């Protein structure tokens, strides 16, 4: 795993931990996706999606679901 991927995993999990703790999973995922959409560069989103497709075993549950949703959204509305 390279530096960039490691950072992305850490950041995704952190966002999920901080946003998602008290929300039903569906809402939590939406919030995490919204945050990533608003604050992350396209290349970072791509790294997350690529990782989640590859293995994703270091992503927590919410972050993993968020990456899948992000992928779907980017396929329908590519940057």
């Amino acid at each position: 795993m390279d530096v960039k991927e490691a950072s992305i995993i850490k950041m995704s999990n952190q966002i999920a931990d901080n946003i998602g703790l008290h929300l039903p999973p569906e809402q939590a995922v939406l919030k995490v996706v919204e945050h990533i959409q608003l604050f992350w560069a396209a290349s970072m989103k791509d790294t997350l999606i690529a990782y989640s497709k590859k293995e994703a075993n270091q992503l927590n549950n919410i972050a993993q679901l968020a990456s899948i949703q992000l992928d779907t959204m980017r396929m329908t509305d590519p940057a």
Partner: protein
Amino acid sequence: MVDFYDPKATQNQTFQANIKTDFGTPEVQSKQQVSLTIDGQHISVAKGTSVFRAAAMLNISIPKLCASDNLESFGSCRLCAVEIEGRRGMPAACTTPAEQDMQVKTQNSKIARLRKNIMELYISDHPLDCLTCPSNGDCELQDMAGAVGLREVRYGFEGKNHLDASKDTSNPYFTFEPNKCIVCSRCVRACEEVQGTYALTLDGRGFDSKVTTGHNNDFLSSDCVSCGACVQTCPTSALMENSIIAQGQPEHSVTTTCAYCGVGCSFEAHMKGEEVIRMVPAKDGQANHGHSCVKGRFAFGYATHKDRITTPMVRDEIDQPWRECSWEEAINFAASKLRGVQEKYGKDSIGGITSSRCTNEETYLVQKLVRAGFGNNNTDTCARVCHSPTGYGLKATLGESAGTQTFDSVMKADTIMVIGANPTDAHPVFGSLLKKRLRQGAHLIIADPRKIDLANSPHVTLDHHLPLRPGTNVAFINAMAHVIVDEGLEDKAFIAARCQTQAYQQWHSFISDQRHSPENTESITGIDAQQLRQAARLYAGVNNGAIYYGLGVTEHSQGSSMVMGIANLALLTGNIGREGVGVNPLRGQNNVQGSCDMGSFPHELPGYQHVSKDSLREKFEQHWQVKIDKEPGLRIPNMFDAAIDGSFKGLYCQGEDIAQSDPNIQHVEAALKSLECLIVQDIFLNETARFAHVFLPGSSFLEKDGTFTNAERRINRVRRVISPLAGKADWETTMALSNALGYPMNYQHPKEIMAEIAELTPTFNGVSYQKLDELGSIQWPCNALNMEGTPTMHVNDFPIGKAKFALTEYVPTQERASRKFPLLLTTGRILSQYNVGAQTRRTDNQLWHDKDQLEIHPHDAQERGINDGDNVGISSRSGNTVLMAKITERMQPGVIYTTFHHPESGANVVTTDNSDWATNCPEYKVTAVQIEKVSVPSNWQQRHKDFSQKQNSYLPKNRKGNRYVNE
């Protein structure tokens, strides 16, 4: 006398606006008015106003020596004696309150005789060396001797006197000559009332009275913080700037804004031609009201230091010598390199970083260059590593990324809670105002791992010190809110009227949970539950509770959560929307607020307008005539990761020293080494420049026009007082680079840049240089709704309508003490140095802090056999360095502290790449470390020295100075 440039002088000639007049005693606030007659003129003044001030308001000049309108009246010189009908004798006008129907005479032969006699006594013990005296031409004693018509001294000079008293030259910036002291005590009172340090006192009685810095010490070894308030108020030459002693009186003056901290003090640059002789805090400065600190007042010599680089330089690789060249060649070289990188690695492979030391106009241009010229949103500012969580947290809760108050608002606060801030060191002029309010009796709560100096200030009572463990801020702030809800102390009416109901209900249910109770969080935070309950009651139980916070809040893995937690607390208690309350982020550098406002963040265009929103982006696209990427760009830490990854290869870095200031330095160095084009624009060859391919000489704040926006959203003018040493102001350099890249920019003056900002930014719509000249400064928002700006935010509503409580669950940082790294390191700042020290290290401020030290609690030191002054190795999972130990009980056991002002210290070799979950603001405040006594520098320090020496050898041989300071 100095001929002042006063931008307002032509606008309003009334006494109200002419604040530079010394009214002798402070303004009094009262609803009751009294009317009196002075020399036949009638005036109505607030009850409690002195006769002296009333006379000054009528432009009647009464002689004085001991009075000054920034000090309480004292009545020692008696020169302001007047006659009042129906009263015996001649009372001092400064200590006599005006009364209804009072009839005052300020001039007649009897009064004149008395004043002349007083002056005669003063002069009988004063050197008659006016012609060779440094204050010749700017001396109140001299003026008064002239005003009273003193022609002889009948007592002679043979008797006992103080004329042989020895000088104190210990302070590098000013000299104390006691033989010229008239013991008016203005310096002593300024030190007490204005600065709040109490370093000076009057010793002895009668003839033996003298001003002293205490027993057996001089100015330098005393408690004096060298703010300059005493020098400024001294009516003679007893306390005088060394620069005036050496160079004589200035001949003109220009009002500008300090380039140091986020207080943004206004200064008068006193000049001789193109040379700054001294900086004097502007009395009409709306942030500082005539006060200053050692940095702004005295540490400006760096601007003309021999280390300044004034010729552009280029090189192909960083292991090649630098080649000096023309501006044109350097700009074309830079542009061609950037374009080359983009052709090879893609449009998104380059970016730009601005500094909060740059003006609004400069940061605006850099982000415009990146978005329009580079064609991406890879723009960021050093606010990333300090207050980015403030922007995020306050926008999420209050709807605007800014503090809510003016600094003056603190004077109406009843309880002041300072969280993770050290105002007396990092924001000294605000710190003095804060101390003034505390001496008036406001309550003080300090939440900080360290017992900061404010806790031990003279005549300040600290109600509660909550010594929380680093990294537990959110658990602490939640516990405060829990107590307020638990004990029913919330402001229900405010919440119902001003806050979103659903969000509040959700939050209420969250915070009511027992896991947030202080009894349950005590084991996390280390704060005694009862202390915390009492502190919460003290904050919630007064009319006005105000929170001031600093980087101890933001620089954490939960920085944004903590900012939201603070906003929650203010909303919960109704402490928003009026004077005396609020959420007050104390911004680190002078233009942190401004650089954020100007669209430096990769996701936001100027005015916090999100780049992904079509309507907002299109407005800029239309004006800039270019397509803007709708995806956010890379933030600074993301740029470093991408650089190491190989996808980010070019960086334009203006005024920021990322190789010293950013965390996990070895990671930063690896990133910088992997760049193919690094352009550094700075006034000095900073640490980052060692990795650069292009060096573009910067201009100091004295060399350019522009604006800074301080921590209270106050836009202040920066005015050019000398020509740019390298021939270009920074905005001109950015413009040249943009033009060379093919994106045209053709501003003739920064005021045109501000006009564009105003056009595109709703909160700046009403801002212009003309209005800034008229009003002195403007606090944004300034638009059709608030034409003269907005001192207090959210008075009637929030930009988002109603405020939103945010859920802030405590999530422990991954950085925890362990067996291997049992201590927690936290980093911060000190009064005499500023940020990476590039400016202050090149001044005599070095006398106070010539090296970074490691503060250790005696218990931790003893366990490891460490003594004061020992070299101590500090290791973390990121790296290790060596610093000198300072044993102090200011620390709590288990926590150590250092500053990062000196590059060779390598404080940021130890800090980690942990960052805030929402903004990537680094977690400087929590690093798990181990320390041990060592005898040699760390490997990194040795490598740093070797690399710096090698880089020195690449510098042009014909230059003196310009060397890395650690050689």
